[in-house]
């Protein structure tokens, strides 16, 4: 399969295996990816501010740029001019290394996730596995940050982060496994291509258990990127700021950027595993190179693909934000209970169920369209039903104008 690397090398006119080709290709991908990480950070932080503001009857940033779109950039520049502080009691080396490790483990995720069929920088045959591995690497960085600060709040945050990320790695890994069982590959590219065709070919609709698998993955991924209601490691009302209490200025900004980068990565993985990756779900659009032809066709097809996966990922990011601004935070022991007593057994059962389904149903190339259509219809129906339900709830709350029953004393 022609990867980005060989593609770029050939465009640049180097031998793919030559040193020059290697360096050139890296230069070509590293700069845009850095820019992309920054843009993802800027856009998600802006989205977070705007979404939270509108949920809370506010307008959010409005001054810098249209609707405050450049506010985050201005903040970033401000942070760049902030004095670089390292506590005297801290372990300087680890203190400096921690943000690097956290950011790098997020950054490398961007190099692995496919943007389109061709725009994938490192197409690893162990893609999913690799992402899970670098995800845990971030936990090491966080623990390093908390430990090296020599601050008790940081330490509490770090321990919480380690416990949380490490334990949610299990249901996360098991739900990834369920997808691998269906796809028969760990390469993100292969998994996506197994979902080509119409919408109902997406893995989400592949069998009745996939929705549950996705929910477990989504909950675990919230915990993995320390988002509410799992924001215990940086719970500002309890631990001041958790593991990055002692970090300020640019060092803090790096943690912040890495956090939003991680949100994009887990969302993009969810899109690849369950929502058809870069496929729009409309075969004509997905294979437009067939009708346009030539290099233009390839470019257009890849651009559509990249746009699709980015939009899908950002939709999931918005769901994460919606949850954050709706739910209170759970407690440490409840967090562990949820993981070990609910998600872990459920994901084991789901793994068994999915593999049994696969054994009976047999591997069908391109998926089972009838099954997919039924699942899709069921999904849409249940969404409409939930919307109705929500309507009924809000009607009930409007009725609350009549005063509630209050126990009277005396």
């Amino acid at each position, binding site marked *: 399969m022609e990867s980005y690397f060989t593609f770029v090398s050939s465009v640049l006119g180097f031998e793919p295996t030559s040193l020059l080709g290697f360096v050139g290709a890296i230069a070509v991908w590293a700069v845009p990816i850095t820019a992309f990480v920054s843009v993802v950070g800027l856009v998600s932080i802006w989205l977070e501010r705007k979404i939270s503001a509108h949920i809370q009857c506010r307008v959010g940033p409005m001054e810098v740029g249209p609707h405050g779109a450049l506010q985050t950039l201005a903040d970033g520049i401000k942070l760049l001019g902030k004095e670089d502080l390292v506590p005297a009691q801290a372990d300087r080396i680890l203190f*400096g290394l921690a943000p690097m490790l956290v950011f790098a483990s997020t950054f490398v995720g961007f190099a692995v996730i496919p943007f389109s069929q061709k725009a994938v920088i490192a197409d690893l045959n162990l893609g999913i596995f690799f992402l899970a591995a670098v995800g845990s690497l971030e936990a090491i960085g966080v623990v390093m940050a908390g430990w090296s600060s020599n601050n008790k709040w940081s330490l509490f945050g770090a321990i919480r982060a380690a416990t949380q990320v490490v334990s949610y790695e299990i249901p996360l890994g098991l739900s990834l496994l369920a997808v691998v069982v269906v796809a028969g590959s760990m390469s993100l590219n292969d998994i996506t291509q197994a979902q080509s065709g119409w919408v109902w070919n997406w893995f989400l609709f592949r069998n009745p258990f996939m929705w549950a698998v996705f929910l477990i993955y989504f909950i675990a991924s919230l915990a993995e990127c320390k988002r509410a209601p799992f924001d215990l490691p940086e719970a500002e009302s309890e631990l001041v700021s958790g593991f990055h209490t002692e970090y300020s200025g640019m060092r803090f900004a790096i943690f912040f950027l890495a956090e939003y980068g991680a949100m994009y990565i887990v969302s993009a993985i969810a899109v690849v595993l369950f929502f058809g990756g870069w496929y729009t779900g409309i075969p004509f659009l997905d294979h437009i190179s067939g009708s346009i032809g030539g290099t233009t066709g390839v470019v257009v097809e890849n651009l559509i693909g990249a746009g699709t996966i980015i939009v899908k990922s950002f939709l999931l990011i918005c769901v994460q934000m919606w949850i954050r601004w709706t739910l209170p935070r759970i407690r440490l022991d409840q967090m562990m209970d949820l993981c070990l007593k609910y998600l872990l057994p459920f994901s084991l059962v789901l*793994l068994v169920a999915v593999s049994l389904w696969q054994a009976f149903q047999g591997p069908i190339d391109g998926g089972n369209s009838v099954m997919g259509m039924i699942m899709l219809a069921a999904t849409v129906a249940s969404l409409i039903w939930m919307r109705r339900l929500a309507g009924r709830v809000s009607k009930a709350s409007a009725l609350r104008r009549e005063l509630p029953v209050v126990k009277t004393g005396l």
Partner: protein
Amino acid sequence: MLFQYAHALIGFLFGMLFVALQVFLLVRLLAPRVKEPMKDSTYECGEPPVGDAWVRFDMRFYTMALIFIIFEVEAVFLFPWATVYNDLIAGLRAAGTGNVLFPFIEVFVFILVLGVGLIYVWKKGDMDWVKAMRGQPKQSWPPTEGSTGERDVEKDVA
């Protein structure tokens, strides 16, 4: 394929370089530096910290770490199986011999063993965060004699 992994490695190094560049170069060039001992003191809510923060972790976290190792390794063992699972079934179907459930049963036994382990850990109470707590006993409920302690959530929402 190894080239792909080399890319991943270089991506990782580049990420670190990116941070180093910003924190150690850009900030050093742009940001002011005014040395003052109070600035570098450790934050503990405005009070001088008592003792060091480099303390021993609570034992409970080690229990969690052990549980993690057991199940994460399980997941790692299952990944190769999951990758070839479809091929195994297809192979058995094509050959027409043997049970198509054979690859499933093999792994099911493995999961079952771990499931028993999970139940054991669960029953032993090592999954309960509160179990190992030494401090005060949990507050009793209901708190006052005469009050039922029941609450009607329906009523709250009315």
